Structure formats: structure tokens, C-alpha cells
């Protein structure tokens, strides 16, 4: 048999390297003679991890480690492009020289040069390497996403990962042999034995908390903050791995914990140092796993798979990271299966100096409730251990064998649990916002609202121009009234970008909350230096006032609470204030500011001649949108009973410039095509409409049903609806009415009465139509 050559690539962080090393171990078992290559980037995790992991291979000179030039960042940046191009050339040389049989990549920008080079060389048939990708996280990384095209097989770790169907294989997260062995040992080891070894009482409730080798600030601080709550239960014991400070790292977990503990000492029970221990590094972590009742950890794929392997209930605190929410998505998959619970970290968006933290009370209570519920913990543990497959690395090796043709049949893989698609996490803010606008804020489940709030907090605390602005929009779109203080703060915050201030007002408009604070903020926003902000502030004021003060045909389903009444009264008292401020903007040179100011005034001013004078000044405004707004203003004034329709008609007919250069085109051929496309939905809609109109319900019921219909259907214009309805003959009406009387729940007597009345009506109707 010819010596097989296997090339691994991927890295940048340890999370990309460990699965590769695990797969390489199992491949070594299948192909004991094989040659191994690893391609990484100098100075990254792989430089130290690979020689450690492949010690034996290196000593037999069967393995080598190569470095290529590569970097993360946008490909549009010329520097990045140049670096990647150099790396690409290096990769081409490497591939042509060694001609590996299989290329295994775990993603990350480090694998970019090799993957692109391999994709190209394979296409022009210079090499015939097979390409296998492995995605460790529940969300597909950018690099893997791009490389799926060239790959033969894409193995993945979490159920529900979105990958092209023909290529995806669910294997799980490959774990190194030694760890598999250890986990089996732990399962064999009894809890009591482990506890005896560690000196923990057998009846204790033991928590193991750690944040990886470097430690996690959020977990360290969260544990310390929650200590008074946790240690109040005399049975709780805690082992806390703070993490070791690496050379060059900014955060020293051990020192941080030491300091914070010293400050907290007074509020802790006197025996706390017996029940709470912290170490910078735990070398016998297996024992702790065996003894633990509950684990508190990060959401990296590696930590989660350890939790699953040990079958322990866990509380996960994923790292907040907007570049795709990797950890949060991973943890969510397990949470939805029921294996773990998540506490999201958040950051105070209003305080730029704040760091990510968790709510210690929530965290402490969640941990305590889990500790006091052994049945639930047991259930979580069983679900978790089902998610773990010790043979993952072997399966990967078998897949490699299959790719090389040494295994005729594809290895049988685990069935993946199917999960419904996630609507919030792992999606961009813009797509969530448009989803919310489309489906309405009520469509979110409480679970989804929690995730959305987490996204909002993280986005709002970013420093960029765009993300806080989008967070404001999202608050409005989802009607997250609990975050209104963010919007109110951002709207007047001159440190934020102008876009953020503008979008804060957009958010306010969609939120629909009106009280004195909101109005005050808007009035202050009217003196913003940026014109779009002023306009949005006025528009928000206009639509909020219109929604709340002007009564129209949608008004009767408005919920009226004591709070809203008092709010409106308060605004009423501010009226003169608002009018004075907005009147100044009526002569603004920006047309949209001017038109919204007019709109606000027509809602608030009670004196028709003076508002009419203001409107009249704009009757010949060169921008027709201002004039369109004036028509709307008159409609509002009419609804407020300040003017009669006759008067409005006179004004608009005689003094108002009606010609404009706003014009919409309509392709006649396309509208014909459209009717064909929409025939089915139109028919359904008008049928429903007809059934409402002709039914024997009360007028009010009909109205509410019609309103809900109007809100949901946006396909037809009013004219089209009328046209469709007119196409029904009077005979249709009578048969319909008859049917609905027959099927209604009236008594026989009433029915007969009703039918006779209908008959009378029908004959008279026919007579009238004849005489016409």
C-alpha cells in the first residue's frame, strides 16, 4: 500500500486546532504509515500545540509543520489581499510538492490559502486531493461557507447546522483519545470516591466553575458577585478555576478574584473559605468533573463537549461576540435540546466604561434552583450524555478512508435530532428588523424576546457607527419597551454618531410609547445639528400624536388604560410648549422637516384660522410632498371637527397648486402578468371579505374582522377590492345570506322570521333594479 499523505490546516485559536489533532490520532490508527502535514500561521496557537500533540510523529519524522502567510480581515483591503495572495502562492507550492491525498480543514482564516489553492489546483486537475472540512461550531464559519464548494465532505458537530445537504455528515466534535479515555474513567469512577479524594462532603452540592485556561472575566466576577447567594445554602461547595495569566494577556483572573473576594468578605458566611476554593489551574479536572453536581462554563465547542461527555448539568455563559454569536449559538443548540441552561452576558450600553457582566442575582438563583432539583439535573445530564459520541474521531477517520476508496461503504453515522430553525440568534440585526416589521412584534415568543434583548444590549454597547443605530431600530421594531431608556439616551447623546441619534427617533416612533419624557426628548432632539435627526424627531412626534390624539376608524380597538389617559393629559399641558417649539421649524429650508412640523401643528393647534394660515403659506411649495402632507393635515383637521369637508374642498379646489412632478409608472403588461400570479390569493381574500360582509353578525363584529383583515393583507389596493366585490351579483348576496342564516345558531322560529324578511327585501330590491 502506498503511503498516504494527509494535510491538516486551520487554526488561529486552539478551538480550530484540537479537532484536527484528534482526527489525526484516529487516522494514525487506520493508516499507521501515513505522513502528516500541518499548515498554519506563525505565532498562532498551532505553533505550540501541534508539536506537542504530534510529538511521536515528529520523532519518527512522519510529520511536518508549515507556515503560510495569511490574515483576517476584509478582502477589499489591499493589504489583506496581498497577504492572502502570497499565502496562496506558498500554498500552491506546498500542495504541488507534497501532493497530499486528503486535505482536512477546520476553518478559520488560517485555512484560507490552502483551501483556495486546493480548490483551484483540483479544478485544473493538477492535484487530485480529496477535501474534507470540519465545522466545530453550530454556526458555519465564513471560511468553511466559502470552501463548501470545493469540498467533498463537510463534517459538523452540532445538530441543525446549515450546510448543503449532499455534502453534510453529522459526526460530532472530535475529542482526543486521552480525553475519551478519561471521560470513560470518570463515568466509572463513583461520585463518592472522587469527593473523598478531593475532601468534599458526600452530601454537599458541589459546583465546578471555570472559564477555560485563560479564565473568563465574566464567569470570575459573576461567581464572586453571586457568592453571598450561593453560600447562603450551607451545603453548597464551589471549586472555581480562575485561569492563568498568559504572557501578554491583559486580564489576570487569579488576581482579580483575589481582590474582589477581599472586598466581598464581610457579606459572606464565616466558613466560606472551607466551602469556596479557587485555583488558577486545575490539573486533576477529571476528578472535579466526577465530583460535580453542576458545571458553570463558557460556550466554546470544546467546553460543551466536555460537559456532554461527563453527562453533567451545566449553566453556560457564552461569550458575547457579535461576529456571528458562535458561543451563544452553540449553547443554544444544547439549551433547546434541554441539556444546559444559559445566562447571557450583557453590557450596559449607557456606560461606555462598563464591561460584559451577568446579573448575579439571576445567576445565583438559577444555580441554586438547579442544585435543589436533583431530578432535573439528572434529566439534563442524560440528555447531555446522549449528545456525546466517543467515536467521533474514529468516524472522521472512516470518512477519510471512504474518501480514499479504502472503505467501500460510507460509515454509518448518528441520527441528528432535528431542531426548528432559530429566528433570532446567529442572524444579522437588519434581517431581524425586517422580520419584525413584517410579522409584527407580537410574533416573538418569550424565549425569542430574551435572545433579542441580548442581541440589542450587545449591539447597543458597540462603538461602531452602525450597530447602536440598528439596535435602536430593533428596539422599535420589536416594541421592546423595557429598553426605552437606551433609545431616550442615545437620541440626545452627542457622543454617538448622527445615524444613531436619527435611528433612536425612528425607534421611538415604532415603539409607540408617549409620555412627557418622550415628548421632552423629542423637543430637545429638534435642535440637533443633523437634519435627518430633526426630521425623524418631528416625524416621531407626529405619528405618536396622531396615533394617540386623533380618533379615526381604527381607534375603537385602542386599549385605554389609566396610564395612557394621564399621559395624554400631561401632554395636553405641554401643548403650548410644543407648539411654540415646532412653529419655528415650519419655515425650515428642509422640505421634510417643514412638512412634519405642519403635521404636528395640525394635530395640536385648536385655532383653525391660524393653522390654515400656516398651511396656506405652503400651497405653492416646489416640493409636492409638502403639498401632499397639507392634504393629510386637512384630513386631520376634519377629523378634529375644526373644519367641514365643504370648506376643505373649496380651499383645495381654488387656492391649492395641484400639479406636481411626482408620478408613478405602471407597466400595463406587467400588471396583466401580476393578476395571473395573484389570482388565487385574490380570490381567497375576496371570498373572505364577502363572507364577512354578507354574514349575519353585528356591525361591530364585522368591523373588527374587516380591520384585522386589512392589516394582514397588503396585496390588493382598495380599488381592486371594490372591483372584485362589484363583480358579485345581487343574487350572490341573497344566496349567501340565506346560507348564513341557515347555518347560524338561531332558533327555527327566528330563522323563519329572518328568511321571510330577506325574501321581502329581495323582491323589493329586484323591483328597484328593474325600474332603474
Amino acid at each position, binding site marked *: 500500500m502506498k503511503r498516504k499523505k494527509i494535510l491538516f490546516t486551520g487554526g488561529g485559536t486552539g478551538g480550530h486546532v484540537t479537532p484536527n489533532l484528534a482526527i489525526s490520532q484516529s487516522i494514525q490508527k487506520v493508516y499507521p504509515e501515513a505522513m502528516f502535514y500541518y499548515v498554519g500561521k506563525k505565532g498562532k496557537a498551532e505553533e505550540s500545540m501541534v508539536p506537542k500533540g504530534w510529538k511521536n510523529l515528529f520523532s519518527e519524522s512522519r510529520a511536518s509543520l508549515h507556515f503560510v502567510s495569511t490574515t483576517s480581515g476584509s*478582502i*477589499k483591503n*489591499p493589504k489583506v*489581499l496581498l497577504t492572502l495572495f502570497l499565502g496562496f502562492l506558498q500554498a500552491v507550492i506546498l500542495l504541488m510538492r507534497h501532493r497530499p491525498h486528503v486535505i482536512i480543514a477546520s476553518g478559520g482564516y488560517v485555512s484560507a490559502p490552502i483551501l483556495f489553492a486546493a480548490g483551484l489546483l483540483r479544478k485544473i486537475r493538477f492535484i487530485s486531493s480529496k477535501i474534507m472540512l470540519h465545522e466545530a461550531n453550530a454556526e458555519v464559519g465564513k471560511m468553511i461557507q466559502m470552501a463548501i464548494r470545493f469540498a467533498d465532505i463537510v463534517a459538523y458537530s452540532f445538530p441543525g447546522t446549515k450546510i448543503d445537504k449532499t455534502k453534510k455528515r453529522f459526526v460530532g466534535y472530535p475529542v482526543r483519545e486521552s480525553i475519551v479515555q478519561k471521560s470513560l474513567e470518570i463515568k466509572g469512577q463513583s461520585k463518592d470516591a472522587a469527593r473523598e479524594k478531593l475532601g468534599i462532603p458526600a452530601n454537599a452540592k458541589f459546583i465546578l466553575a471555570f472559564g477555560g485556561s485563560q479564565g473568563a472575566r465574566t464567569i470570575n466576577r459573576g461567581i464572586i458577585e453571586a457568592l453571598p447567594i450561593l453560600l447562603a445554602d450551607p451545603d453548597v461547595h464551589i471549586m472555581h478555576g480562575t485561569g492563568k495569566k498568559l504572557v501578554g494577556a491583559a486580564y489576570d483572573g487569579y488576581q482579580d478574584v483575589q481582590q474582589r473576594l477581599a472586598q466581598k468578605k464581610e457579606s459572606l458566611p464565616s466558613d466560606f473559605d472551607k466551602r469556596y476554593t479557587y485555583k488558577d489551574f486545575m490539573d486533576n479536572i477529571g476528578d472535579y468533573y466526577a465530583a460535580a453536581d453542576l458545571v458553570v462554563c463558557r460556550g466554546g465547542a470544546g467546553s460543551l463537549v466536555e460537559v456532554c461527555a461527563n453527562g453533567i448539568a451545566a449553566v453556560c455563559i457564552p461569550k458575547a461576540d457579535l461576529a456571528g454569536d458562535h458561543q451563544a449559538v452553540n449553547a443554544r443548540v444544547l439549551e433547546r435540546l434541554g441539556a444546559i441552561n444559559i445566562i447571557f452576558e450583557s453590557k450596559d450600553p449607557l456606560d461606555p466604561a462598563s464591561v460584559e457582566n451577568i446579573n448575579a442575582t439571576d445567576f445565583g438563583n438559577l444555580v441554586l434552583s438547579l442544585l435543589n432539583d436533583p431530578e432535573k439535573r439528572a434529566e439534563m445530564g442524560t440528555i447531555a450524555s446522549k449528545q456525546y459520541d466517543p467515536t467521533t474521531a474514529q468516524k472522521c477517520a472512516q470518512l477519510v478512508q471512504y474518501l480514499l476508496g479504502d472503505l467501500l461503504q460510507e460509515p454509518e453515522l448518528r441520527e441528528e435530532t432535528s431542531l426548528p430553525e432559530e429566528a433570532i440568534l446567529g442572524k444579522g440585526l437588519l434581517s431581524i428588523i425586517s422580520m419584525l416589521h413584517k410579522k409584527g412584534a407580537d410574533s416573538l415568543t418569550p424565549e425569542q424576546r430574551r435572545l433579542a434583548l441580548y442581541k440589542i444590549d450587545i449591539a447597543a454597547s458597540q462603538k461602531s*457607527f*452602525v450597530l447602536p443605530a440598528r439596535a435602536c431600530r430593533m428596539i422599535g421594531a420589536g416594541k421592546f419597551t423595557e429598553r426605552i431608556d437606551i433609545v431616550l439616551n442615545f437620541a440626545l447623546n452627542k457622543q454617538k*454618531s*448622527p*445615524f*444613531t441619534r436619527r435611528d433612536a427617533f425612528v425607534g421611538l416612533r415604532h415603539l409607540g410609547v408617549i409620555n412627557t419624557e418622550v415628548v421632552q426628548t423629542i423637543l430637545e432632539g429638534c435642535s440637533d445639528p*443633523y437634519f*435627518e435627526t430633526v426630521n425623524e424627531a418631528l416625524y416621531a412626534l407626529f405619528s405618536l400624536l396622531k396615533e394617540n390624539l386623533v380618533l379615526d376608524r381604527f381607534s375603537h380597538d385602542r386599549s385605554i388604560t389609566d396610564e395612557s389617559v394621564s399621559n395624554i393629559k400631561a401632554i395636553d399641558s405641554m401643548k403650548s410648549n410644543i407648539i411654540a417649539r415646532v412653529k419655528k421649524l415650519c419655515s425650515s429650508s428642509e*422640505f421634510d422637516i417643514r412638512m412634519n412640523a405642519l403635521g404636528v401643528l395640525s394635530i395640536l393647534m385648536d385655532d383653525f384660522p391660524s393653522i390654515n394660515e400656516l398651511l396656506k403659506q405652503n400651497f405653492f411649495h416646489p*416640493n*409636492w*410632498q409638502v403639498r401632499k402632507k397639507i392634504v393629510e393635515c386637512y384630513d386631520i383637521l376634519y377629523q378634529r371637527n375644526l373644519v367641514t369637508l365643504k370648506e376643505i374642498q373649496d380651499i383645495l379646489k381654488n387656492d391649492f397648486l395641484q400639479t406636481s*412632478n*411626482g*408620478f*408613478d*409608472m*405602471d*407597466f*400595463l403588461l*406587467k*400588471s396583466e*402578468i*401580476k393578476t395571473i*400570479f*395573484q389570482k388565487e*390569493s385574490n380570490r381567497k381574500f375576496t371570498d373572505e371579505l364577502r363572507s364577512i360582509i354578507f354574514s349575519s353578525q353585528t356591525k361591530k363584529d364585522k368591523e373588527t374582522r374587516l380591520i384585522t383583515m386589512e392589516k394582514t393583507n397588503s*396585496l390588493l389596493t382598495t380599488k381592486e377590492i371594490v372591483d372584485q366585490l362589484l363583480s358579485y351579483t345581487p343574487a350572490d348576496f341573497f344566496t349567501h345570506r340565506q346560507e348564513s342564516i341557515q347555518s347560524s345558531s338561531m332558533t327555527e322560529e327566528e330563522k323563519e322570521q329572518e328568511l321571510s324578511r330577506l325574501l321581502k327585501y329581495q323582491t323589493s330590491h329586484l323591483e328597484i333594479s328593474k325600474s332603474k
Partner: protein
Amino acid sequence: MLNFLAHTITGFPALHVLTYTTTRAIFGFITAFLLSLILGRPIIKRLFLSGFRDYPRDFANFSSGSKRGTPTMGGVLIAITALLSIFLWADLSEMRVWIVMLSMLIFGTLGYLDDYAKAKHKDADQGASRIFKMIPQILFGLFLGTLAWKNYGNIFFSTTLTGFGDSIFIPFIKEPLFHGSFFMLLFGVVWSGGISNAVNYTDGLDGLLSVPAFFCFLVLGVFAFVMGNSVISEYLIYPFLSGAEELAVLCSIFMGCCLGFLWFNSFPAEVFMGDCGSLMIGGVLMTISFLLHQEAILIIAGGIFIFQFMSSIIQELFLKYRGRRLFRSAPFHEGLTKSYKMAEAKVVVRFWIVSSMLAAFALLTLKLR
């Protein structure tokens, strides 16, 4: 080719009329226009069938008012008619004609690749990357700059003005402002990248590009005719460039192409020009103005392009570094249609009017200096 035939066939004195520049220019104009009419329908059909269009995937949102689904890449029509007319009417022994055709090839291909990528991904943002487009533009700019600086092939040789190649002229002043020597390289690069992109930015509404381009070609054609004619150039005190009048023929051919394209592109459009057309027109305008060293004239006559381009660039910088908009919307025509909600046909016709005014102003500099 007809010019060549008229020279070789000696028996018919009537054929001699085909050697005059003016007659060839007018015949070229008519030919290009008629060719566009003849070839227009089949090419539009071809483009539609080969998928250079966008189509909504969701029929529920099918809008009868939107222009989606209109075939794009109509620049192919311009290229074909222009090339056929050039082969018929231009003097192919003139080097300048070949340089213009080279620019057509380079910029047309660039635009084609861009359009192709967009059509393939069905997404207007997925076109060829900016860097990819920039490299050939820079190379062509360097090529033109070298020709001007070193005066290879005597393309920039004037019998009446020594050192014409690296001179920089501005309107209203007879003498060259200064001699650029090797700065011509830099100038060539800026000119090449700037103008072709500026024209590209302007494209966006039906007929918004073809008519301003028509006026630019008209102005440049007049200047080419003046500078290529020994008598008129002496009278108007312009450097005499032997053979430059051939560029006037090219200009009038392109005028015909623009009009022929407008036949189909006028509101509501049956075909879009695409980047293929806009980059190519930009490249040709840029090359002709550089060959005549009348860059400033193009800046005046094509003021619309420059204005659109600069406003977009400034807007983009503000978006990126200040987090706000400076203008309501950029390029300018988008502001008018999207923010001021002005009807498209109105905006386009107003742009035409402005560009005709600019062209008149540019022609004024012919005598006023």
C-alpha cells in the same frame, strides 16, 4: 474601409467624396444610428434569453411598477454598432483610432465582467471588486501617460507646438499652463480611473447617460476637427495635430451609437446599458479627450459626470468616517427620484437640458480665450 477603397479605386471620381472627413463623419453618424435600429431587437432578445436580467423569485411581491427584469448589458449593442461603423468609415491607418478601440476593448470587457458577476449572483452588490476593476484602469492610464510623456509613435506630435505631449491646457488661456513631463504618468492614471468611474456612477436612470455622453462627443468632435484641420487650427490658434480629425469621425460615430441606443433605452427602458456600456463610454471619452489634451473641456462638457462622481465620493466618506449623510442621497439623480420623489422622466430630461447648456459653454471656450 470605404476610405481605403476610395483611395485605391481610381476610376470613379465620385468616390472621392468618401475621403472627406466631414462626409465620413456624417455618414458614420447615420450608419451607427441605423445599425443600432437594425441590431437592437435581436440583441435585446439575445441578452434577455442569456439571463442578463434580474427577476423576482417571489411572485407574491411581483410589482407592475418596477423595472426589474429588464435586460441589461446593452453596452454590447453600442460596442457592436460602433465597431462596425468604425471599420466602415474611419481611416484605419491612423494610430489614434486603434488606441480608442483598445480603450473600448479594455473598459468594455471590465464592465462586461462586472455585469456578468452581477447577473450570475442575481445581486447588484455582487459585481466585480473595486480593486479588480482598478488595475486595468491604472495600467491603461500609465500607457496613455507614457505615450504623452515620451511621445512614442508621434501621436502627441504637433507641428505648431513643441512639447505638446506633456502640456496641460486650461480653458480661456492660449498657451499651455505648464509642461508635466513624467507627471503625465500620474495624470494619465487619475484621468483614466476618474472619468471612466464618473461616467459609470452617472448611469442609473433611463437615458441619463446616453444624452450627456452625446453632447460630450459632440464637443470633443468639434475640437478634434479644429485641431486636425491646419487652416482652422491656425485661425483659432490651436496646436495642429495631423490626423486628429479622424477622432472627429469617431466622435460622430459614437454620437450615432448613443442616439441609437437611446431609441431603446428612453423611458420606459427596454434595455439597460449596464456597466459594460457606461464604463466603455467613459473610457472612450477619457481617451479621446486625452489624445487631444482637451481634458478641461471634458470636465466642463461632462460636468454632470464629475458632479455625480464627486458627490458620491464625498457622501461615502461622510458615511464611513462621520456616521452621517451630507446630502440626502447620492449620486444626485437618486436624491431627486428617491428623496424628492420627482418623476424619473422629469429628472432625466432636466439632466439633458443641463448637459446641453454645459456643452454650449464648453464650445464657447473655442473662441473666447
